[in-house]
């Protein structure tokens, strides 16, 4: 079953521009010059239930803008998008019950409370009854090994434990799709590995569809079977990891392959 379907999705931003020098400053006051930037330009793709997809690209390529449009935070100004059969623009709340989001550096937990209290709060946000929440916390804590620190205030946890809790908190309502925006940013290799295994486990246990953006090649390589690369708002590659590696045989690492694709202009032609 298709869980995400985007057709010609587009978003244009208007950016203020200023000519250099004094004259430019005055001009900016009286005749502000703006420039249109197509952050996302006619992007089309679809994702099947249970897939683990890496959505990558250099800074400013349009990754975050795309995630924001898929979750209903931003309205697209062109194209069509459906997530779980719903239009995020018009059914944002309804959709919110079925998706989860983790935005890398942004913390959503109350740090003075324990993970347990935090989970209780998110249970309430997603309309679970107390007994449902309890049951779910028990289940999650067992699967993801949280028992040791579930009653320790979040501010006393290590960074790794904290991120684990951030991710688990977004699972309380059994989302069918999870959007992860740079989940491993700024973590040490050991913690990164444990977060990756958590994500893998979650996909295996609950068949959760994972939509992941990351700059970390390790994340992509170890987690995802499919990769979409965007550059300047357009999809330049959409293929399975396996196929990608076969096509670029002879390159040392995935990082080299990605670098090469980033630097090449336009769409990457690959024979199938």
């Amino acid at each position, binding site marked *: 079953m298709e869980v995400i379907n985007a057709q010609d999705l587009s978003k244009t931003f208007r950016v203020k521009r200023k000519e250099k020098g004094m004259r430019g400053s005055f001009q900016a006051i009286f005749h502000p010059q703006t420039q249109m930037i197509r952050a996302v330009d006619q992007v089309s793709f679809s994702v099947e239930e249970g897939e683990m997809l890496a959505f990558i690209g250099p800074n400013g390529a349009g990754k975050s803008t795309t995630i924001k449009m898929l979750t209903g935070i*931003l309205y697209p*100004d062109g194209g069509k998008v459906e997530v779980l059969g719903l239009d995020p623009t018009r059914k944002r709340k309804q959709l919110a019950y079925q998706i989860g989001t983790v935005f890398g550096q942004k913390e959503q937990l*109350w740090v003075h409370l324990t993970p347990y209290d935090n989970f209780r709060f998110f249970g309430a946000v997603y309309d679970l009854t107390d007994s449902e929440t309890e049951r779910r916390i028990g289940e999650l804590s067992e699967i993801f090994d949280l028992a040791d620190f579930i009653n320790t205030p979040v501010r006393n946890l290590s960074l790794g434990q904290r991120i684990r809790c951030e991710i688990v908190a977004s699972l309380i309502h059994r989302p069918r799709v999870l959007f992860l925006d740079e989940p491993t940013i700024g973590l040490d290799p050991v913690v990164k590995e444990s977060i990756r295994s958590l994500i893998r486990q979650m996909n295996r246990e609950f068949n959760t569809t994972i939509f992941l953006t990351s700059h970390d090649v390790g994340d992509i390589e170890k987690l995802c079977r499919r990769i979409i690369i965007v550059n300047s708002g357009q999809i330049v590659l959409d293929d399975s990891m396996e196929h990608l590696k076969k096509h670029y045989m002879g390159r040392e690492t995935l990082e080299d392959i990605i670098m090469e694709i980033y630097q090449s202009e336009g769409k990457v032609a690959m024979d199938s």
Partner: protein
Amino acid sequence: MSTGVKNQLRVCALSVKYNIMREMLNKVTFLTNTCFMMLNNAAFIIQWLILFRLKGDIGGYTMREVMLLWGIACCSFGLSHLLFAGVFSLPELIIGGRLDPFLVQPKSVLLGVMTSSTRISAMGDLAYGVLVMCVFCFSVKRFLLFLLFTVTGAAIITAFALLMGSLCFWFVRGDVFGNYMVNAMVSFFTYPDGIFNGTARFLLYLVIPVGMAVWMPVHVMMEFDAGALFSVVGFAAGLSAVATAAFYRGLRRYASGNLMEARV
């Protein structure tokens, strides 16, 4: 009550409870803050004792009315900052693009933002307001009116701050202007309305809503007037509705907006 509303209220209540728990984490800081806020408010009694020694009636108020005014002002301000302090930082949230986390939750964005923080000294204001009311002019009827006007006052303060904060959806420097307006409102709160006349009085009733938040309630508590009471309640409801509409109008702009600077 529908389950949707009940669930929403449950989330708000939890949010407020957790905020307050955070502020009370350091008991000493919390108590000192509360006590100092009460002392701070009490210090102004001296000012009024001196003024009333000079003249028995200032702008139609005696000491009792001024104390009632302080009671209403402190309680409304305290209640608003205890429950809905998030509204006062709305400009920073909009400008910093930090509304996103509220948008991915299946609950009201507005209530989520409003209940996202609390002000530590709000308890002191609330306690002082109730204390002043009880000491200076207690009667059961007046106390019930006092509770009602605390709620309408808090609604007016919150709604005005929301309306001013929502300006940021449209104007980049809207936060500066909005802050001026909210601070101006608070400055006028503790002075009798009788000293202002003409245009100033008109502005303070209609543009900066000091009149309906505190002055009219004091008049009703001293001399009951059903018409005035309903006009206060109506004004609070009306202003709240307008502010809510403005917020959601702005939010649509935030989501469909194409100005990049606020969003990256």
